[in-house]
């Protein structure tokens, strides 16, 4: 090949790439349009197929509807299921389905859809969500019954998960592996137009939509007629896009950016209660944390208030127990909650035989009180680690920080190579206690290595012997009270979810509904001008 030919082919490639990209972005001027940026946790979703997905973005909640919606107060609301009923023994769930619902491809939504849908989870990574369902019976066109393998009061929670968006059976079976990539068909308020993985998804309004849930004011077609959801990994870049009007709304803003947001006149933000807790995890099998007194002293040395103020700029809540505050299970005996008490922490260590040396570092049996704090390289977590490091210095504990990527952190926890770790979880259900502290989950996710008969007995009751929701609540409270009394973790912070938007471009309802800013609020957002 000669040089000229080489250069020519290079420029053709460049040109083609440029044109291809430009072509995909021809805007229709007259319609109200909006651009949202996905939150950092949602970035990199490879497709929008809720059944096969391990990572789903907000996009899925816009294309698909769920049977049941969950509100900000964790209450459940009908959507494609108009009503539901659980038999007293918990072994049968009956759902009445909404009528007149159609998929984007014109196919009707009915009982047959559900009978096709539930078995599709077999072998998928989301199988566990409907694991307790033995089979689905079609009672009539708009009534289905789930016959259970075991009682599962938590099924209703699972059905409100974003993985429970219902795709069109016809389109799903026809598209095969391409479903969620080149096409995605649901009954939701937005229809799929295009998707560039790692970059953006373009959606258009479903003008036939008339079955909005009662979480939305607008039950009909969404006000935004064309919605682009972009993926911007760097928070600074996303913020700059918002500032310059390239993006109208950020679905997720790190707390560190809020002061900068507040300084901008045309920007505003909304918050929703958080989805998880930032906490310190102990490894009870690694000294010195085998000793409950050391764990307790560590817990009392952490000043949640100071962390809230500096790391999280005062946004969110201090956490004093393990569950998010909107869960009723979180209301435990206040005396058991963990609060900052430096004096008592020092006293506990004195009693446990850890004597302060001249340099202020405690020593016992000739060994200094020196520990490793494992954390992952995400800003808030890293900063929490840094401030915890400074706070633990006050009780004579020397902390060395080890920052790893998230997978390596998990690997360390699994191998029990950690002593203390800054962790964060996102889960709005009390069964997270089982996940992190059940003996059956040693070594991971129960990386605390906690093995205790009493604790496990309370866990079994809560997980397997709760027939009703009320029973379940009471059982989980007792379970957490046992765990917190053993000082297996130090709750630190309950983040809120922040959504920032440009108020010269978008009108966002003052009060958000749902557990996250997803479909329920998206259909109510209006474009200004």
């Amino acid at each position, binding site marked *: 090949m000669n040089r000229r030919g080489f250069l020519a082919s290079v420029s053709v490639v460049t040109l083609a790439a440029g044109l291809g990209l430009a072509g995909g972005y021809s805007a229709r001027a007259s319609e109200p349009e909006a651009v949202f940026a996905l939150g950092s946790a949602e970035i990199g979703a490879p497709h929008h197929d809720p059944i096969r997905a391990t990572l789903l973005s907000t996009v899925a909640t816009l294309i698909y509807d769920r049977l049941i919606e969950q509100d900000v107060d964790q209450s459940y609301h009908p959507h494609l299921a108009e009503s539901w009923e659980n038999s007293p023994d918990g072994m049968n769930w009956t759902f009445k389905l909404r009528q007149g619902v159609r998929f984007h491809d014109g196919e009707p939504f009915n009982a047959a859809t559900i009978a096709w849908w539930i078995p599709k989870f077999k072998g998928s990574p989301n199988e566990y969500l409907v694991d307790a369902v033995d089979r689905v019976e079609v009672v009539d066109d708009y009534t289905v019954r789930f016959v259970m393998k075991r009682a599962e009061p938590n099924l209703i929670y699972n059905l409100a998960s974003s993985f429970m968006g219902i795709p069109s059976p016809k389109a799903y079976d026809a598209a095969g592996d391409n479903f969620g990539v080149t096409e995605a068909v649901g009954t939701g308020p937005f229809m799929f137009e295009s998707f560039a993985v790692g970059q953006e998804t373009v959606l258009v309004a479903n003008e036939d939509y008339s079955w909005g849930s009662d979480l939305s004011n607008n039950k009909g077609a969404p006000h935004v007629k064309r919605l682009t959801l972009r993926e911007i990994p760097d928070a600074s870049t996303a*913020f700059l896009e918002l500032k310059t009007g390239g993006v109208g709304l950020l679905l997720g803003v790190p707390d560190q950016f809020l002061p*900068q947001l507040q300084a901008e006149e045309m920007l505003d933000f909304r918050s929703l209660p958080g989805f998880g807790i930032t906490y310190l995890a102990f490894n009870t099998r690694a000294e010195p944390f085998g000793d409950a007194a050391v764990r307790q002293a560590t817990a009392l040395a952490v000043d949640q208030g100071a962390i809230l103020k500096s790391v999280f700029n005062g946004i969110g809540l201090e956490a004093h127990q393990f569950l998010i505050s909107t869960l009723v299970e979180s209301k435990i005996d206040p005396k058991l909650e963990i609060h900052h008490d430096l004096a008592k922490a020092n006293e506990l260590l004195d009693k446990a035989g850890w004597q302060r040396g001249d340099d202020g570092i405690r020593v016992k049996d000739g060994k200094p009180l020196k520990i490793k704090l494992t954390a992952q*390289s995400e800003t808030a977590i*890293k900063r929490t*680690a840094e*401030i915890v490091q400074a706070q633990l210095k006050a009780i004579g504990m020397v902390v060395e920080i080890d920052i790893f*990527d998230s997978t390596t952190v998990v690997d360390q926890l699994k191998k029990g190579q950690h002593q203390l770790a800054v962790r964060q979880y996102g889960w709005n259900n009390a069964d997270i206690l089982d996940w992190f502290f059940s003996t059956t989950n040693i070594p991971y996710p129960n990386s605390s290595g906690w093995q205790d008969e009493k604790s496990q007995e309370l866990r079994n009751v809560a997980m397997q012997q709760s027939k009703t929701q009320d029973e379940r609540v009471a059982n989980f409270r007792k379970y957490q009270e046992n765990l917190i009394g053993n000082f297996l973790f130090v709750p630190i912070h309950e983040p809120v979810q922040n959504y920032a938007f440009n108020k010269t471009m978008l009108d966002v309802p003052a009060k958000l509904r749902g557990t996250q800013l997803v479909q329920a609020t998206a259909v109510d957002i209006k474009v200004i001008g």
Partner: protein
Amino acid sequence: MIRHRALAMLKAVSTFKGGISGAFLLLLVIGALFAPWLSPYPYDQQDLGIMNQAPSLTHLFGTDEFGRDVLSRMITGARTSLSVSITAIGISVALGLVLGATCGYFGGTFDRIVMTVIDLTWSFPEILIALMLVAIIGPGLEGVVIAIAIAYLAQFTRLTRTQIMSLKSETYVEATISLGAGHAHVLFSHLLPNALAPVLVAAMLATGDAIILEATLGFFGLGAQPPTPSWGAMMSSGTAQLFIAPWVILLPGLAVALTVVFINLFGDAVIAALDVRAKFREA
């Protein structure tokens, strides 16, 4: 030979460019060495009452997100950034000299295999090699040092090899061998000392690149473990306050840029003084 090189250094410093850059680098090294005494505050002293404050008389470079003194952190950061890059390049040069000399001197299959691998890594983006290696070795400065050392190994191996190959063909080497000298003796006493000058100049310039690479790894949250500051780590955590405390990110960035510029200028001055053919960059 040694005297010649010391003379060259003197000559380099005596030029304008060489003088200015030499003085800056000397100051920097002194600052890094005596960081604990020169810092106005302990680098890890948090004061949540004065977070993100703009530069002032009490805090010349302002404070960061924990109310720590940015100047103190930058001085200590210089220590981290310099020691990481110098150590890494030192290891890289040492390995590269041995590998390159062996390949260049003996040639053959061994040479071909090593050079294939070396060429491959040379064309691979350093940042990807470094990220991969840090993932394997683990975070912390050791990981970063080893990653940078390996990322730059190819350059020094290649350079040494080329030097040795061209020196080998010179007549005095044949003469030495004909006098009955062993390979090791020829290689280490005659060839390597002569090949050293360009490699050392290249090493100096690579130290600049290594500082940037360290900063970039710091941007991905790898490297210095908190509260130890490095310029890269400071820039990385500074991105979150880009608008309310821009000095936290701007000043370390400037420090990196200036240092690398001066290293390059000094390197150029040394090249000119040593009269090493500046060609080595192509090798």
